[in-house]
């Protein structure tokens, strides 16, 4: 038995440690309270609560550095919709649907044209989310957006991100048409806008994507889904012959296609399929998906930190642009529009709320790390304040989805940080990340 197969066995065992009966309480309760969270990264942004910390006396916001995920979209690929549609239609013709299945088939059929070939596209709800976020940013930090303020916006070159940027900037323009906003989308910036992409010279073919066969945690994911999921039960409610379903592929993958259909439907609002799964089924599928993101883009020890460490390029961009802008006073805000995995990378890099803690016992994972913190339109915002009587006295608040989050650095003004402390911390984490990338770079 060679070393790699020993590792594989160990990983499989660690997966089995995930006992399905011992639900991790925190995530379970949170999802109970807001079922959108069971849709993980497909969930809709919650606009209900915002942190309204009152800044220490005498400070005023003057600069914002932001990274936002694109707004609500259709499934990442049209193939999820096509698969579910083909299976239902064929089963309908073959008399293989249960009465529940017939009703679902009919419901899906009546809206299918609106899903057809729309994989990856931003929806109208996705645009509305950005208008809303822009308007809230404008209202909450009026002093940043003075008349004619210069704002720089960059997006990933993926169309939904360009559309997201455009919608956000339109949201600001609606508040104040005099704002001087420049928008750009360039492959030349992708090495930091999407640090885990092939455009980053440090990324190799074994690092890229979400379902790369080279990923060392694939075996764990496989054993985890066998422990957690019961696709026969799910399909048994819709199809009267599970063998018919099996003709279309692996039951786990097929169930995931239906999950994606259910989870992304609120993003377009064309139909509601939330009754297709039971709450416990959704919770289990979410756990599987949560592991996938945690293992791939978070602090899972199996990948040695290599994935999140790539995001040092983005952290470096945020810090160096802030330095430049604070010195020149030229830009009032830097807006960036990209993807969920980059927000996960950055939250792990910064160890937001303990997000860089590795979890070996996967049954505990949902307590530490939740993919639903990065829903559609999710964002990170650094809001810079300065003391009116001493402009060199700069403090920063840092938010995930407009709520203050905690970093492992001392602050006498929490949830605000002195920029000098925060910057030193960011630079230290950049150094750690660079070192990880270097150490794990294949020769």
């Amino acid at each position, binding site marked *: 038995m060679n070393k790699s197969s020993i590792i594989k066995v160990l990983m499989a065992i660690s997966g089995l440690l995930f006992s399905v009966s011992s639900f991790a309480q925190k995530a379970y309760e949170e999802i109970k309270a807001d079922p959108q969270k069971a849709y993980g990264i497909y969930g809709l942004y919650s606009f209900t609560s915002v942190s309204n910390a009152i800044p220490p006396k005498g400070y005023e916001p003057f600069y914002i550095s932001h990274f936002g995920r694109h707004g609500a979209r259709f499934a990442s690929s049209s193939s999820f919709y096509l698969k579910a549609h083909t299976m239902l239609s064929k089963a309908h013709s073959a008399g293989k649907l249960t009465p529940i299945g017939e009703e679902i088939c009919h419901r899906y059929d009546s809206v299918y044209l609106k899903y057809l070939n729309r994989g990856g596209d931003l929806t109208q709800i996705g645009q509305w989310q950005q208008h809303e976020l822009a308007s809230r940013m404008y209202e909450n930090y009026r002093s940043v957006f003075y008349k004619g303020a210069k704002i720089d916006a960059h997006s990933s070159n993926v*169309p939904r991100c*360009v559309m997201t940027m*455009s919608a956000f900037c339109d949201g600001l323009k*609606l508040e104040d*048409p005099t704002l001087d906003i420049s928008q750009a989308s*360039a492959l030349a910036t992708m090495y930091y806008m999407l640090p885990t992409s092939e455009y980053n010279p440090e990324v190799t073919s074994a690092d890229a994507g979400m379902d790369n066969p080279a990923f060392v945690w694939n075996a764990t994911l496989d054993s985890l889904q066998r422990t957690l999921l019961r696709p026969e039960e799910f399909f048994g409610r819709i199809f009267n012959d599970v063998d018919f379903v099996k003709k279309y592929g692996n039951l786990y993958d097929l169930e995931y296609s239906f999950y994606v259909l259910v989870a992304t439907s609120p993003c377009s609002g064309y139909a509601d399929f939330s009754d297709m799964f039971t709450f416990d089924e959704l919770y289990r599928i979410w756990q599987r998906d949560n592991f996938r993101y945690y293992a791939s883009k978070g602090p899972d020890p199996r990948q040695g930190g290599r994935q999140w460490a790539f995001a040092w390029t983005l952290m470096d961009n945020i810090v160096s642009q802030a330095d430049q802008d604070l010195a020149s006073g030229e830009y009032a805000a830097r807006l960036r529009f990209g993807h969920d995995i980059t927000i996960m990378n950055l939250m792990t890099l910064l160890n937001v709320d303990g997000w860089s803690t590795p979890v070996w016992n996967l049954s505990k994972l949902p307590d530490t790390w939740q993919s639903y913190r990065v829903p559609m339109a999710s964002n990170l915002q650094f809001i810079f304040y300065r003391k009116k009587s001493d402009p060199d006295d700069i403090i920063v608040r840092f938010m995930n989805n407009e709520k203050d989050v905690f970093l492992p650095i001392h602050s006498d003004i929490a949830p605000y940080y002195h920029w000098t402390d925060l910057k030193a911390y960011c630079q230290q984490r950049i150094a750690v990340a660079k070192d990880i990338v270097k150490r794990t770079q294949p020769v």
Partner: protein
Amino acid sequence: MKRFLIILAISFGVAATSYAQSAYDEIKADPFKAGGEYNMYPENVPAATPAPKGYKPFYISHFGRHGARYTYSSDAYDHMKSILDDAHSAGKLTPKGEDIRTRFDALYPSVKGRGGDLSQKGQAQQRAIADRMFERYPQVFRHKGCISAVSSVVPRCILTMSAFTSEMIRLNQDMDIRTDTGESFMAFMSPQSETNPGYQKVRLFDKSPQRDSIDKDKAVLLAQCDFPAILSRIFNDMDYARSIKSLDRLTFDFYYLAVSTNCIDTKESFMDIFTTDELCKLWECPNFDVYSLIGPGKYFGDRQYAICDTLLNVIIHDADKDIADGKTAVRLRFGHDYGIIPLLALMQVGEWGKTIDNPLAVKDFWRNYDVPMASNVQLIFYRNRIGKILVKMMLNEKDVTLPIKSVTGPFYSWDAFRQHCIERVKFAEGLF
């Protein structure tokens, strides 16, 4: 002279069916036209032809090309960098060549990796076009209907749409603007897409006997160009230059550098590499390429432009629906030159659909520099009290003619215009 030409253009009102001036004369008056589709959008456009008495504009249907952009691919910049660096190291550059290298090196960091991206100039072009649309047809925007915009999925087109629509928001914050993009629109937004069934049948970008014939006929145009004379300004050793690649291809590397640099946000220009005479002759080659590949060239039996029947169909269907329900006042579409050129050919606008046998004569009827960056087609619909509808069509905000009888000046009855379009779509469908 320029002013005289503008007055001349205005006095003709409707663009003359054949060009009043030779292409060479036009390029001599404005050498940037030699850039063909890299030509910049005109800064002065004629005033709008007044609406016929009793008619008011109420609906606009538009198809616009993205604004000015960087060169066609980032590789082109990297490749130019290595050509100049290698020649420099080998001592093969003339003093002029060294000067070009120094200037290119200064520019390089700002263009590296930017191939295909919209420039700031490109965004400004869209704002200017939006401003004029808003100012010239205010009645359309007073209407309660929404503005519906769709773009090609290519980022520069989405950014183009964004520049246009955000300018509309600046002009009026109450407008209901809806934007969208996605692969599902590409069959008409970019007719050469795999999703367009017509394109599947005439794979223009693949190697084919037709492509070989185009290359064969183009030889006469290449033969007009004195490549050694141009390149000897840059390289001191023609054998060395030949060892890089064929002299014509090497010259065109410099041509595209020169004409694309005008489109980006720099004061640098490489147009000094060429004389105006050289530019005229060089221009004829890509002009012929585009004419043959997506214009009315004889090689693909009209199918090369007929594939944009998807777009013409959408324009007609949208208009039918929007006129009937009044919900949409403006349809904006943001795509590529490869959408506009076949559309002009299919609709038989001016001479854009005319097939010319002699490659040397193409320039007399067909000039790609009239589809510059930000180029656009606009159909302006007018209605009178009794509901009669007239339409005028503009290319780059200048009225154009179609081979149908007009009611007055550039104004056609919508019925006749629509009928012509439907016949052209049928003609296109018949080819496949």
